[in-house]
């Protein structure tokens, strides 16, 4: 039940997939994201970011002074037209 629970809704990544990947590769939050696509959907990880962070195996001191999963623009969805210079 808990295993099948969706953590990343945009990319439909389950708890099981994240937990197994974190264990198998003993990986950082960033690697966990890249391996599973959790946090890479259209919402930009606004829902699952903190959960991906917690499931990652790597909880070193670096975490204290650095945001583990980088924020990149655009941080809100924008239309392709606006992004591309307004040609309709």
């Amino acid at each position, binding site marked *: *039940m*808990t295993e*099948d*629970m*969706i*953590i990343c*809704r945009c990319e439909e990544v389950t*708890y099981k997939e994240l*937990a197994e990947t974190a264990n198998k590769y003993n990986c950082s939050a960033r690697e966990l994201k890249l391996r599973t696509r959790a946090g890479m959907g259209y919402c930009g990880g*606004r*829902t*699952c970011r*903190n*959960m991906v962070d*917690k*499931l990652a195996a790597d909880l070193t001191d670096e*975490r*204290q*002074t*650095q*945001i583990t999963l*980088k*924020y*990149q*623009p*655009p*941080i*809100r969805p*924008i*239309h392709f037209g*606006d992004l591309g210079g307004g040609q309709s």
Partner: protein
Amino acid sequence: MNNVIIIGAGPAGMSAAIACAQKGLDVVVIDEYLKAGGRLLGQLYEQPDGSWWNGIEESARLHQQALDLGVQIQLNTPVNNIEHHDGQWTIYTEHETLSTNHLLLATGAAESPIPVPGWTLPGVMSVGAAQVMTNVHRVKPGERGVIIGVNVLSSAIAMELKLAGIDVACMALPKMSQLTDQQAHPKHVLDSLLHVSHMAPSQFVKLGSKLMKNDFMKKLGVTFYPKRGVNMWDIPIQLRKAVIEIYGEKQVEGVTVATIDSNGEIVAGTEENVEADFVCIAGGLYPLAELAALTGCPFYLIEELGGYIPLHNERMETPLDGLYVAGNITGIEGAKVAAAQGTTAGLTIAKQAGFEGLDGEIEEAIQVVEETRDQSYIQFHPEVNKGREMVKEKWEEYVLPLRSI
């Protein structure tokens, strides 16, 4: 080009806008929501002196005051990027690109989710969403709800739901997992509730009749927590039960709860169903730092303040030229602290924009922030002062080598 751009129209952003405009600066406030006020909009509770704190009225008052001073307020406008070039900040919204020398980020906080099996069903929402639906939009989230997660915020919102005539079947803890932190530990939750009891607003005491100060605390603290829970405003608060699943065919039909021991472990065979048509998940708040994170501002993880905090000083300056922060982005606290921080930031910006003789006013504003913090009766984190001290230390560490150059 504008003198000042403020992102976030909550209590911090609006108070800053008012302080800047009073000094004669041109101010633009941008917010992604359709109304000004931010999280203040949802608040409704009785204060110790018996008066009511009505977030909608407070928001309207701030909004009007800002408008009267000539502040431009752009609502429904998400900011998707900010950049810093040649001492100037560029702010990108979908339809417009703005620039300024003084940028204040007052982006507030966001809610942490707690995943529970079935949490993707329609009818499951964050507790803040239920609050906004009820208090801002005046739409019932449902007829009968269950709240997962017992904390200061969810208790206050449970009471607001009751005031709106919505039945709350129970408040219970989430089932423990790697993702729940201490929110699934009955002992930890109990401790955090006991910690706020002495600051509980009279509404807690009044509506909960004899609960908070005496019987409730005795029941909670001294004896083992009763299996049936303790009622507060007729809502059973279950610290010894965890929601293990949210069920329903096409939408929420109820939750399955089980008894947990004092360490949060499920007692097998104790599962039972509780019918409900909506479920609120209350995982607490964290500073919404997305925009600040794009700037390269240093961050520190400070649990006492709710998460990653952009480095700042008491005048609300960051180490980056012309970048300021105020409100919950600097740590999770109440709306009144956020407003006081906003005023401080506004005065600091006015000083940096060339207004002289403001040092006394800025010092006073910093004092007001501290007094407001000390007088708050709802502390989101019991160690907030410790967290603030940590930020001060980090600031000193950061600026010290720069000074000696």
